[in-house]
């Protein structure tokens, strides 16, 4: 389950747009899989491709990790 940490007030209202590398994209996906589903990114891909989430694909945590899966994996 996701948790929300405290955010300090920020004077600069800008948001940084960052172009991630494939390695960073994988790290984001892997971190999300561990955070939301307590499994690694590789484990999620194996489970997804084996149809193990097919019965409940709309669970929010699954949707989030699926959407963060690098589209070339």
């Amino acid at each position, binding site marked *: *389950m996701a948790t*929300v940490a*405290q955010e300090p007030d920020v004077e600069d209202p800008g948001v940084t747009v960052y172009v991630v590398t494939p390695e960073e994209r994988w790290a984001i996906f892997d971190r999300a899989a561990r955070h939301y589903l307590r499994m690694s990114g590789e484990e999620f891909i194996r489970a997804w491709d084996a149809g193990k989430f097919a019965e409940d694909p709309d669970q929010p945590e699954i949707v*989030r990790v699926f*959407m*963060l899966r690098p589209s070339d994996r």
Partner: protein
Amino acid sequence: MTGRTPQEAVKAWASSFQQALSCITGARFNVDGYRPADRPYDADLNGGLAVPLAAVARLGLIAILRYRIMREATSRDPWIVRIVTYHYSLVDDTGRDIVSYEWHPEGTSWARWQHVHIGRAMLRDDARLSSRMHLPTGPVPIEDVIRLAIVEFDVRPRRPDWAAVLQRTNRARAESPDQS
């Protein structure tokens, strides 16, 4: 969002998101790339994890998208970025979903249309409504979710011109009818 080059189109699109998000968060917005490809690219706020918002009742925002870079030869700026999937959630301080606006036509869900889920924690056990239900919506732009957070959930905006910013960024991306 359009551009003379793919890079220009992605930059304009990402910048509009950046501007809108800056109304309530300083977290990082990530995009994957700007080279035309057969596959969609990923984009996310804070790596897809909840970003805390400044509100009396603690609240978080999750934003995850996929976009495609396409060429439309008839346009003066031929390169265009289209959102093809989105997931925008407001969550409580324990990470439980309050409301989630979604469109994920490429997944295994049978719901291919834009919809909203009401969080399970927001529903009584005997409610006719279920968090699994896909309540239809039109395309929901991120600006609507940000406005919802500010106006209805009392999130403190980070900039005084937030209403004008949301109007401007939403209008910029609304040039194409299926943008959101």
